[in-house]
């Protein structure tokens, strides 16, 4: 059996674990349950109504700013956004002003440039570390793993000043490199912990089988484990993406003017132009559009990551 056969078997086994109960009796039970659920659904109109009203209330603040971001500067200052229903007058001027005049377009590029390596690098490093902790026996492994796990409790704040001094001494302060490096370092404890949890759930027999065939650790990692871990990697990837894209503290501390991401630039606008709602509303939505798209399209993975139990904040 070659390594790729092994991985094939792993995939069928893993998916088999999920699909195994798909037998006739289970199907009919599911059908029955679905019918019951539908009946219950109809019998709970009050709960449905309350739930949907709360959900709408929850969205109104965002909706208000969204509507505002398309209104004209004069309208925003003279009437509430809710009057736009009866008196609609929309323009994209605010976005143009925010992107071009306030220069958020270049901050958008910075956010992108910061985020991609700051997601790829820690995931790769954490995968390797998680593999070592799960599948390479060595002395002191458990102690070391607990130590890495414990590092999750270190708040980022505790590290900032000495790290900044280090960067200044090395002559790299303010560049993208320091932002990438910092985000990668801060992400590692949680990433290693989460990926290790997923990795140790892979049946040991598969890894053993590959090892019998003479596969080295790198082959086992890429051919056997990696295909199985794609959902876990996606889960942490979404998590880390949102974390980095939405981060303010690391950006304010380490990124210089040319590397400032959207969050820091918009926070600066909020501080200096607190009443320029046409800029702030458009700016807020420019920071939100990418995470919202990622979040909505990959929500399933994100939820899985959350449920895997995290303590990062």
């Amino acid at each position, binding site marked *: 059996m070659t390594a790729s056969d092994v991985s094939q078997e792993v995939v069928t086994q893993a998916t088999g674990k999920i699909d195994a109960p798909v037998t006739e009796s289970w199907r009919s039970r599911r059908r029955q*349950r679905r019918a019951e*659920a539908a009946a219950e659904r109809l019998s709970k109109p009050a709960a449905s109504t309350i*739930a*949907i009203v*709360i*959900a709408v209330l*929850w969205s*109104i603040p965002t909706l*208000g*700013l969204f509507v505002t971001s398309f209104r004209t500067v004069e309208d925003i200052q003279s009437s*509430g*956004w809710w009057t736009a229903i009866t008196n609609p007058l929309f323009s994209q001027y605010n976005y143009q002003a925010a992107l071009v005049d306030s220069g958020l377009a*270049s901050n958008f590029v910075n956010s992108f440039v910061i985020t*991609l390596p700051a997601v790829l690098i820690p995931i*790769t*490093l*954490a995968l*390797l*570390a998680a*593999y*070592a902790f799960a599948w*390479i026996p*060595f002395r002191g492994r458990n102690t*070391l793993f607990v130590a*890495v796990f414990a590092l999750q409790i*270190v708040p*980022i*704040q*505790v*590290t*900032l*000043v*000495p790290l900044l*001094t280090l960067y200044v001494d090395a002559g790299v302060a303010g*560049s993208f490199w320091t932002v990438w*490096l*910092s985000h990668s370092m801060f992400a*590692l*404890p949680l990433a290693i912990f989460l990926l290790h949890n997923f990795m140790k759930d892979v049946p040991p027999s598969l890894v053993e089988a590959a090892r019998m065939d003479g596969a080295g*650790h*790198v082959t086992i990692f890429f051919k056997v484990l990696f295909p199985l871990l794609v959902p876990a990697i996606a889960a942490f990837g979404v998590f880390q993406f949102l974390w980095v894209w939405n981060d*303010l*503290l690391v950006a304010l501390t380490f990124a210089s003017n040319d590397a400032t991401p959207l*969050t820091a630039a*918009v*926070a600066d606008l*909020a501080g200096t132009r607190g009443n320029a*709602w046409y800029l*702030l509303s458009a700016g*807020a*939505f420019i*920071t*939100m559009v990418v995470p*919202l798209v990622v*979040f*909505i399209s990959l929500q399933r993975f994100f*939820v899985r990551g959350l449920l895997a139990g*995290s*303590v990062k*904040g």
Partner: protein
Amino acid sequence: MDWLLDAETTAHKLALMVLAIALFALVMGGILFAVDKPKRVPQWVVVLGFLGPPLLLLVLGLVYPAIGTLVNSFKNNDGSEFVGVDNYAAVFSNSELLIVLRNTVLWVVLVPLVATTFGMVYAYLVDRTRFENLAKALVFLPMAISGVAAGIIWQFVYEYRPEGQSQIGLLNQVLVWLGAEPRQFLLNAPQNTFFIIAVMIWINAGFAMTVLSASIKAIPDDVTEAARLDGVSGFGMFRYVTVPSIRPALVVVLTTVAISTLKVFDIVYTMTGGQFSTSVIANEFYSQTFRQFNQGLGAALAVLLFILVVPIIAYNVRQLRLSEEIR
């Protein structure tokens, strides 16, 4: 060297990014290639290849700086001499910093409790209703929003115009509709802190709801069925069946929200900058360290943050252990 450090044009930045990723891939690929000879390479070299780079980063980025900050917290504000526990004494005696501590306590008590309670009740309410997925998605959505954007969204909700002018902030408009006077929600202490806390609750309720909804759905049908046969229904079902069944998840949610609340910085920074007696430890750390250059005091605040996180996580881990033993 300058080309690597100062990127001004978009093309330059993107090139730098590609270079960084390629460099990383090259280094890691090289290390892995070197250790992938199962017979000839001793075990410890393999371990070093897999664990070396991440451990190096952890020591450089977390362990070493944390020790540095601990040392700094016992030094004066330019770091030139040791002052013992003076910085910590200042945190607990300066009247402004006492307000910061009080606010932090308010945040850490209110946000987890309210967000978790709301999330739990909502998850129970919405379970198996029509539009369940849509309703949950809408409540969950704020999780994707940065603290900066959330701060701006709510600042606009709280926006104030003097009485007589037409209001542009929704909450003041509602007050006017109800016949009340518009208020300066974010300026008047101490209630302004509660209005900022509401933003954090708005974000975290969706997190609580999602996790708790999953564990409510995981309650075996026979358990609810048995309770129903015993005549339990409505609130009794929630109180005596649902809540005890999801207890472990409740602990995880409460502690996770408490920790992220302790470290929250961007919301306060965006909405008030910590002015008008709204600051919390994480924000005060930033302004003492990077605005007022009180390094010693800032370090003491950071260490305090660390000390406050420890018992919450210890409790969390203990509960996880307990629930695993039961299983």
